[in-house]
């Protein structure tokens, strides 16, 4: 597949620059919309339906590059680090318009766009920020996350991957798991144990940048219940990491990992919630147009409306969080991201199951999914299964609920 020729002809005829219209929200929105109309291939969902992995990866790279051309890949980054420093109102517009245009999800770049900067902004060295943020922005480098291990899931702090300092390098041995897009990643945000003797297990962990091309790194994709395999295992066999790729201080990795994880509960869900809103609106409009039977079924219809109200509440929670972040960019104090993550993931489960049930037997048919379609792949069962990724990973809901009870509600340990 040649992705380049797939873009609309108009792209060539006009240069879009939404960020130049930042000061006028309406003009900014109009420009984002015009750009999306010009650049998002009308047939991308059809082309990505059941596409090969290679085509999908190429399409992701192309889309990321297109976003980058108009500054909309990294607009949420600080200006100093290659972003546009846009605030919540602009971000709302971007996500709303992306959802409206049903543009592809840049799934492969999620860690690059959110987790990496959240990690480096506060803790990375200037050299690291210059090198790696630029790499993402200008060369579309793909990052993955190396946190979980087969024996360390909920109990992340028990991780056993070992990094031993030897001269100018750390020598790393161990195994990581559940690394999305690990097979295509250039770099990995890696947690490893540097002090196995630390009295508190959290205290012996360091945070590294791992070059996925380094000798000793082996990646094995894991097939998931959905049939896809974007999760990977990473085996580390005497891998050498230069000391300059240690993030922050040695043995201070645990706290830094918390900023990485908090990224997951913020902007990423923001974008997904805008898409979810779009899906619910579209589902209702479809039902109205086709006079769908479920509108006359009181139980199904009310299940929809309950989900709709929950979705509205989700968006409001995210807006409240964005306002908090604008006031205090370090959002360490807020528990809202955790509420949002649990609320979103449970709503996602509920709504994808609702759609699956509405589908009856058709919903049970195996259908090729739209790669990059996020949670709206056109396959109700796939979307339903994918919802587990949100209740299990990034801190399983069980862990987060205990955290809420103890930290936000003050219940005793």
């Amino acid at each position, binding site marked *: 597949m040649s992705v380049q020729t797939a873009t609309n002809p108009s792209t060539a005829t006009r240069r879009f620059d939404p960020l130049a219209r930042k000061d006028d929200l309406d003009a900014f929105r109009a420009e984002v919309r015009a750009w999306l109309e010009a650049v998002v291939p009308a047939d991308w969902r059809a082309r990505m339906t059941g596409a090969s992995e290679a085509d999908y990866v190429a399409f992701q790279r192309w889309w990321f590059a297109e976003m980058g051309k108009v500054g909309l890949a990294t607009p949420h980054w600080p200006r100093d680090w290659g972003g546009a420093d846009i605030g919540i109102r602009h971000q709302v517009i971007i996500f709303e318009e992306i959802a409206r245009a049903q543009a592809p999800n840049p799934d492969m770049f999620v860690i690059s766009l959110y987790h990496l900067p959240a990690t480096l902004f506060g803790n990375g060295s200037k050299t690291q920020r210059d090198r790696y943020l630029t790499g993402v922005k200008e060369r579309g480098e793909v990052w993955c996350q190396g946190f979980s291990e087969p024996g360390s899931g909920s109990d992340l702090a028990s991780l056993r991957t070992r990094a031993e300092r030897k001269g100018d390098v750390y020598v790393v041995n161990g195994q990581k798991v559940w690394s999305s897009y690990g097979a295509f990643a250039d770099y990995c945000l890696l947690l490893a144990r540097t002090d196995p003797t630390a009295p508190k297990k959290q205290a012996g962990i360091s945070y590294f940048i791992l070059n996925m091309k380094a000798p000793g790194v082996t990646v094995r994709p894991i097939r998931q219940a959905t049939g896809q395999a974007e999760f990977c295992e990473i085996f580390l066999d005497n891998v050498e990491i230069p000391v300059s790729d240690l993030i922050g201080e040695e043995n201070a990795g645990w706290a830094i990992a918390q900023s990485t994880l908090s990224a997951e509960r913020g902007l990423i869900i923001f974008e997904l919630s805008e898409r979810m809103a779009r899906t619910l609106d579209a589902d209702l409009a479809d039902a109205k147009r086709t006079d769908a039977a479920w509108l006359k079924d009181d139980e199904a219809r009310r299940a929809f409306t309950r989900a709709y109200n929950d979705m509205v*509440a989700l968006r409001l929670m995210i807006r409240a969080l964005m306002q908090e972040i604008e006031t205090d960019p370090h959002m360490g104090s807020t528990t809202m991201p955790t509420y949002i993550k649990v*609320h979103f993931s449970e709503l996602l489960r509920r709504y994808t199951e609702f759609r699956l049930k509405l589908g009856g037997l058709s919903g049970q048919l195996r259908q090729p999914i739209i790669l990059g379609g996020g949670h709206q792949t056109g396959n109700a069962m796939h979307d339903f299964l994918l919802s587990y990724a949100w209740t299990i990973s990034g801190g399983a809901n069980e862990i987060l609920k205990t955290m809420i009870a103890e930290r936000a509600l003050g219940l005793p340990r």
Partner: protein
Amino acid sequence: MSDGHSTDGMDLNALRDGVRTVLSEQASHEKVAAFTNAEGVRDQPLWSQAAELGWLALFADEAHGGLGLGPSELAVIYEELGRAVAPLPVLGTMLVVEALARGGDADQQAAWIPRLAAGELAGAVSMLAPGAPAPTLTLSTGPGSGVVLDGVVENLLDGAAADVLLLLAREGEGLRWVLVEPAVDGVTVEKAATVDRTRHLGVARFERVVLPAGRVLTGDADEIAQALLHHAALALASDARGGANAIFEITLDYLKTREQFGKPIGSFQALKHRCADHKIALVASGVLVAEAVAKAASGDSAAGRYALAAKALASEVYARVAQDAVQLHGGIGYTWEHPCHLYLKRAKLNEQLFGGPAAYLDGVTDLLLAAA
């Protein structure tokens, strides 16, 4: 609603603090319990205090002795009353003010609003609900220029505490809102006690009750009804928000202090997860209520749908949290002395007032479908 200033510039946090301080004394759980045990219809000292403090004047416009404030300030009052499970017929009174402001003529406004705003009169209005059938009360032309009311009106919230009733009546094919004082000849109002003793329902009977024509509101009855329904929905959603947070906090305190098996029961993980679920639901419904209030305050075109959605969600969450509060407290939460049951009963009544949960969800769906 929760933070900062309303569009009119009132400091909502200061208002909230003020109201909460007053209620923590005047409507402490002990005082509320005493009121409910006495089976009263109106807590006169509390009512007088509210009037004195200007709570009842917040919403009326300045021309009629009010402060001219809006939904944001009112929501603070409703929420704090809910938090205290306070027995105070503010909602009915404010609904009469709202109806007069929207559908009354200048004479009617001048005659009634100042007295309502001053707390001289408490009001009660017909129980509306999304999709409810037409009333059976009839209005016909009477002797001279007057009108005649006949029929029965049930389910008047705090009706036996009211000095003026605002009722929806059928006039031929149409509908009209009529103001009646229970003291008028031919009117009887009885209290129908509810399990929630902080409030009650009233039954008003009318036998050829002759009223001057000036008691009929001139505004479009349906428009008034819709405005009142949305106002009531927001008020109950706010009451639910306040009540749910209060009983949740009471429950958390208990879980932190009550020990069994040698440790606080709040350290048991199954209870922790239930509390976390409740907290998330409280946050989610809380932001929805706040947004519904903000949309009402700004006159947003979606304000009605948000009000219905807020009532549906907040009253459901209130019921869920209050129901689990009893279970989490165990035996003590099931006693008459403990405030748990006050919240539980108020939550269950809230679910039904001005329409039940299904009616609200269906109302939201209808509005969504109309816009789809």
